[in-house]
């Protein structure tokens, strides 16, 4: 069977064909047919990804076969069975026609070759918009199977036949399916896409080609960036697909009134946007520089020409040569200086933006995200950007411009010889493509191996002490893994190595030289080529091939920089704490704190606080107790505005926390939690952090109150000691001294603070007792016996207040408090 161009391409690239047999045919609707086939060897060595499709060769009855792609449905690798679903449309294309006539026992040929599949975008989209028609359903079903249950999905399908609605769509808790009857106007479906903020949604557009085109135009209007739209037409109305399609005209519609949304996937591009014009300008200058650097060779050509012609005047060429060199160097120097300036400014801007962003993020963000992410953004990612600006772009342009300019020049000298010079490159592409094709499955295994060995290495090193102490065998598992990986690499690369060597030999300069000499010689003998024209080739043409190939490697650092920009961009897009438009002020020093029906959840799914209403009277100590996970720490953290409540509010003297600036809030509310936070600087600076103009006397008074003054005087430089090495408990007392100096009227406290450093536990406890005097205190208690003296004990359970009262009141009442108290009783036994 003739297969035409497609067949030739697939054959050259080594696609594997399989013959499959039809085992069942089912008409889901009169126009939608499901064909089940069996192919025992089809799944060998293939990993199944969502929405992957096969290419089948459908006969058209006249001796020719056409290649069509269909999504795999219900694959069963063990049995070697899967299904395909065909939309039977009129007039029928080859695949449709074949499906219509298919019966069990028929055979057809299929191939996996080059079938892209659905890859979940990273970062995961906020929602999915899946648009198409009955032909799209298999793909859409496959995607729905991978989407998490909490992500909303909108499916818009164009209905061409009444019974299309009967075609089953995979159920999904947050998916709405809308079938729109087709009106004959391709723009109908596009018009059905709502005008709303589609920020961070991902669109998958398939189906009829004219409709798909309209939909994609509409999505573009709505602001969808290109990477967030996947579009592929599956069939053309009125035409057997594959031949020329009628041109679909796209209507201009009025611009949408809703502000186009902002996609997270574009965060990196947004970050780099100010750089873009400068990088382009730099690229242009670099082009000029590269051309100037090629110029000396042209002068050499001229020199050679004069030598052959016997002309004398050779020294005069020296002047332009030197001038070109000088100009090239000067321009290049200016360019380097300019790019460094650009980088210094831009880098500073980015880092400042990150730091300022940090000061606006909710404090709770810092406990859930490791500082590693920030370190990466500020150091490693900005280093990638630095490299991008100062080196990568310039190098890439230089690497591309020179060989391309040479190519253009040589083509003007002799088209024939230039064509011959390109042969090694063409051979290179073919050989490499074949190699990639045959080893692509291995590549995936390689990445898996790297990840596995990496994590096993970490585990091995971490467990080394234990392994040694317990003689846990000679690192058996890890050693075996390493050995297996080495064997895998050996088996993979060894056969490839001879091919790679061949490729290398083909593209090396001497091969090109031989080609030029031989071909050039023949052409000159034949009178087609003027011997003088050989000169440019001999001087310039020998290496341009390998230079062009080397340019490909430059793309890697551009990719890295874009990934780095994306990471920084995402960091800068994190949601911030709201800021008050008209900030309020608090007066006096006796404040009442109220929690009014406060609800909170960290991730939107799991509720941590479920309507807590509580009042803290001025000057009282309120203790939060309860089983772990009840929400004590969270409630206390909300008062320190680590997060904002999802519903309800927290007020101080009737003023919502959100209406206070950070400065005003923290003048009034202080907190002492388990993490000690010392900053670089002297002890004095650490204590006086909130009040930089405090006198030494005031600082000392605070230190005495915190019980750390003695310890400080024993330091090498006393209060002026920089980066003092203090134990956990000593650092904690320093933080308490800081709070003494800041003197907030309301205090949020974690009782376990003291417990962190058992050695100085006692001193920290005394300091906390002193700190609590005269303030409104909210304390998180892990050990019940520490808060028996509190004015009010609030028992939290499952995010709600279960009981409230004093210690004796609560003990007298049967309830959670009494149970907890009795369970903790054995504490009394040990000292």
């Amino acid at each position, binding site marked *: 069977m003739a297969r035409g161009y497609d067949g030739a391409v697939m054959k050259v690239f080594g696609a594997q064909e399989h013959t499959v047999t039809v085992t069942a045919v089912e008409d889901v609707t009169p126009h939608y047919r499901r064909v089940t086939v069996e192919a025992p060897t089809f799944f060998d060595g293939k990993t199944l990804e969502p929405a992957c499709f096969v290419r089948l060769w459908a006969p058209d009855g006249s001796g020719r076969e056409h290649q069509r792609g269909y999504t795999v449905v219900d694959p069963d690798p063990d049995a070697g069975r899967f299904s395909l679903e065909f939309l039977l449309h009129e007039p029928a294309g080859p695949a449709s026609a074949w499906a219509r006539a298919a019966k069990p026992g028929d055979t057809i040929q299929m191939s996996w070759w080059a079938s892209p599949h659905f890859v979940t975008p990273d970062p995961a989209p906020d929602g999915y918009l899946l648009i198409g028609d009955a032909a799209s359903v298999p793909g859409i079903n496959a995607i729905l199977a991978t989407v998490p249950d909490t992500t909303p999905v909108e499916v818009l399908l164009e209905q061409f036949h009444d019974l299309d609605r009967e075609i089953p769509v995979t159920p999904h808790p947050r998916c709405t399916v809308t079938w729109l009857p087709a009106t004959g106007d391709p723009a109908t479906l596009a018009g059905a896409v709502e005008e709303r903020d589609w920020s961070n949604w991902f669109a998958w557009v398939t189906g009829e080609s004219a409709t798909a085109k309209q939909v994609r135009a509409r999505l573009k209007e709505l602001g969808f960036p290109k990477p967030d739209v996947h579009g592929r037409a599956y069939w053309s109305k009125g035409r057997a697909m594959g031949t020329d399609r009628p041109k679909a005209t796209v209507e201009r519609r009025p611009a949408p009134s809703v502000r186009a949304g902002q996609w997270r996937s574009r965060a990196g591009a947004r970050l780099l946007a100010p750089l873009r014009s400068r990088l382009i300008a730099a690229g242009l200058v670099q082009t000029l520089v590269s051309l100037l650097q090629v110029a*000396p060779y042209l002068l050499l050509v001229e020199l050679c020409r004069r030598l052959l012609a016997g002309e004398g005047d050779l020294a005069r060429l*020296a002047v332009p040569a030197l001038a070109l*060199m000088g100009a090239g*160097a000067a321009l*290049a120097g200016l360019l*380097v*200086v300019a790019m*460094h300036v650009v980088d*210094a400014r831009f*880098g500073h801007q980015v880092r*400042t933006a990150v*730091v300022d962003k*940090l000061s606006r993020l909710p*404090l709770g963000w*810092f406990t859930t995200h490791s*500082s590693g992410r920030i*370190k990466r953004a500020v150091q490693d990612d*900005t*280093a990638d950007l630095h490299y991008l600006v100062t080196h990568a772009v310039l190098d890439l342009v230089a690497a591309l411009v020179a060989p391309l300019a040479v190519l253009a020049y040589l083509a003007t000298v002799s088209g024939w010889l230039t064509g011959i010079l390109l042969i090694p490159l063409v051979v290179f592409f073919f050989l490499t493509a074949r190699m990639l094709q045959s080893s692509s499955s291995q590549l995936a295994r390689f990445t898996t191996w790297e990840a596995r060995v990496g*994590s096993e290495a*970490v585990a091995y090193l971490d*467990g*080394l*002490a234990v392994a*040694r102490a317990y003689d846990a065998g*000679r690192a058996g598992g890890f050693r075996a893994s390493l050995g297996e990986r080495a*064997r895998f690499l*050996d088996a993979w*690369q060894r056969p490839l190595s001879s091919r790679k*060597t061949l490729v290398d*030999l083909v593209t090396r300069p*001497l091969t090109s*030289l031989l080609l030029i000499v*031989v071909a050039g010689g023949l052409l*000159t003998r034949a009178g087609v080529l003027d011997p003088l024209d*050989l000169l440019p080739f*001999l001087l310039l043409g*020998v290496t341009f091939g390998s230079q062009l190939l080397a340019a490909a490697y430059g793309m890697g650092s551009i990719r890295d920089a874009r990934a780095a920009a994306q990471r920084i961009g995402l960091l800068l897009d994190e949601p911030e704490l709201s800021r008050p438009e008209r900030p309020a002020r608090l007066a006096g020093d006796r404040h009442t704190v109220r929690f009014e029906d406060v609800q909170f959840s960290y991730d939107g799914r799991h509720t941590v606080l479920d309507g807590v209403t509580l009042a803290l009277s001025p000057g009282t100590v309120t*203790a939060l107790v309860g089983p772990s996970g009840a929400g004590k720490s969270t409630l206390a953290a909300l008062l320190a505005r680590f997060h904002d409540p999802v519903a309800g509010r927290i007020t101080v003297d009737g003023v919502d926390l959100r209406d206070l600036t*950070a400065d005003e809030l*923290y003048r009034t509310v202080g907190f002492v939690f388990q*993490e000690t936070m010392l*900053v670089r600087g002297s002890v004095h600076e650490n204590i006086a952090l*909130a009040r930089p103009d405090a006198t030494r006397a005031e600082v000392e008074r605070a230190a005495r109150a915190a019980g750390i003054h003695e310890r400080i005087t024993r330091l090498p430089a006393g209060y002026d000691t920089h980066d003092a090495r203090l*134990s956990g408990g000593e650092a904690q007392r320093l933080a308490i001294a*800081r709070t003494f100096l*800041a003197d907030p009227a309301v205090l949020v406290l974690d009782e376990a603070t003291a417990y962190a450093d058992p*050695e*100085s*536990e*006692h001193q920290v*406890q005394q300091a906390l*007792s*002193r700190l609590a*005097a*005269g303030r409104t205190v909210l304390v998180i*208690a892990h050990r019940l*016996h520490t808060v*028996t003296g509190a004015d009010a004990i609030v028992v939290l359970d499952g995010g709600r207040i279960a009981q409230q009262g004093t210690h004796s009141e609560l003990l007298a009442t049967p309830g959670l408090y009494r149970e907890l108290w009795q369970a903790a009783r054995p504490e009394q036994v*040990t000292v």
Partner: protein
Amino acid sequence: MIDLVGDRRAAARYLGLLAVSAVIRAGAVLSLVPLLPALLDGGDVLGPAALLAVLVVAGWVVDHRVAGAGFTIGFGLLNGLEGRLLDRLERIPLGWLTDDRRAEVRQALTSAGRELCSAVAWLVTPAVNALLTPALIGLGLLLVAPPLGLVALAAVPLLLGTLWASMRCVKAADASYAAASREAGARVIELAQAQPALRAAGRAGTDGTAVGRALARQRAAVLRLVGFGVPGQLMFGLATQAALLALAAAAVLADVTGPRAVALVVVAVRFVEPFTTLAELSPALQNLRGTVARVRSLLAAPTLAGTGATPDRDAPAIELRDVRFGYEPGVATVDGVSFTVRHGTTTAVVGPSGAGKSTLLALVARFHEADAGSVRVFGRDVRDYDPADLMRQLGIVFQHPYLFEASLLDNVRLGAPDATEEEVRAAASAAQLDEVVDRLPDGWDTRVGERGATLSGGERQRVSIARALLKRAPILLLDEATAALDNANEQAVVRALEAGGRDRATLIVAHRLGTIARADQILFLDGGRVTEAGTLDELLAAGGGFAAYWRHREQAAGWTLTPAG
């Protein structure tokens, strides 16, 4: 890197073939000297063309062999290196593995083999070729056109020198950038870690804060990089262009006929080109040097050796005599400590943090070696034991228990792989693991995940204790083993430890009173020295540092938060 290879013959063969390949290449280039004039003039081309063709084809054949030899070496490295690294690692004292070294070792283990394998074929081969070929061309030119040959040979060291200088500039620029970046980065990380405190103090932005100043300094540092950037990026290019023109001029001045001069000019261009290749390869070569350095540092790390001493059961189990040790030179963490632990007794080490308690245990287990004094186990210095023999005498419970990705039972069984099931369960019960097993879905067979992730801190500690109990080693070293346990569990574990206490010597670092109350000997360690030693009653009666410490611990246990002015 050659000595890493091990197989000398393969290396010799490879280098020999490389040399031949370079000679052929140079020859091919020089064959242009007779060939081009013939081509341009219309003379007899056949002879020289045939010569060129033969040389090029010979070059293909030889290079194919070179590649083969290179791959043999490369694959040899791939298959053998990792095994050698692991062998070495097993004999390295654990104290050598600081955090930095750990990262390097990890990198060496995971990617060194692969990198070295591909480096030989794709990096070393072209680099050596690029080095040798121009020199050989220069030598050939000496025979053909001496003035040009001289200029060429003079250009070789000049160009190499410029390349080296330019690489140094780039390296200095990178180092300077990294330093500036680190400083500012550290400030930002501190900002992130102390954000709550800074926010509460109103010092969180870039305005007038330390962070802001650090960032400004970094910007200034980046601007100064220009001083490195300009020479680094331009010097070499300029040098090659200058060399080219100089060679061209020399070719012309060599006073030869037109076509021959042209041929020499073409040869000059072919002469300069390998230097550019070398420049392109240099970043990768730098990386290769880094990898090789990492591998070599691991292979050269000190190893624990022993002289095969055997324990003397009559001697005290543990004996330290005037031991001194410091992590950093000049700072003595252990400053003249002496004590003895006899078989059948329990010794507790107590004291303020940083006093060196855990270090004592590490010295007994030979994770570090004492700077002065002697550490003896069963009468022999720990350095005289074979590492495995020493470990056989010790059961260790670490401060941060590490569990392997295996079932709970297997993790406990690690203590004594040949133990019967009853023995394993008995040890686990003694360590209070029964309630943990009841809680887990698969009981004993529950996989405790990577690094024992599904268990709480206290539960992991109990597994660790069970492991040590199972081993029944004559010496038990416990480092804060009960820190994460609640009171009931702590008491039970202490009882279990006591139960077997007569059969072994126990050295325990702890600060929980229940754990140390009944020790036969309590050592109070303060500032690296044992300031007090005795039983609990003796030390309390003495009313010294320990008594004060004990009192504080009691008060801490009974504290309630009552605002006190």
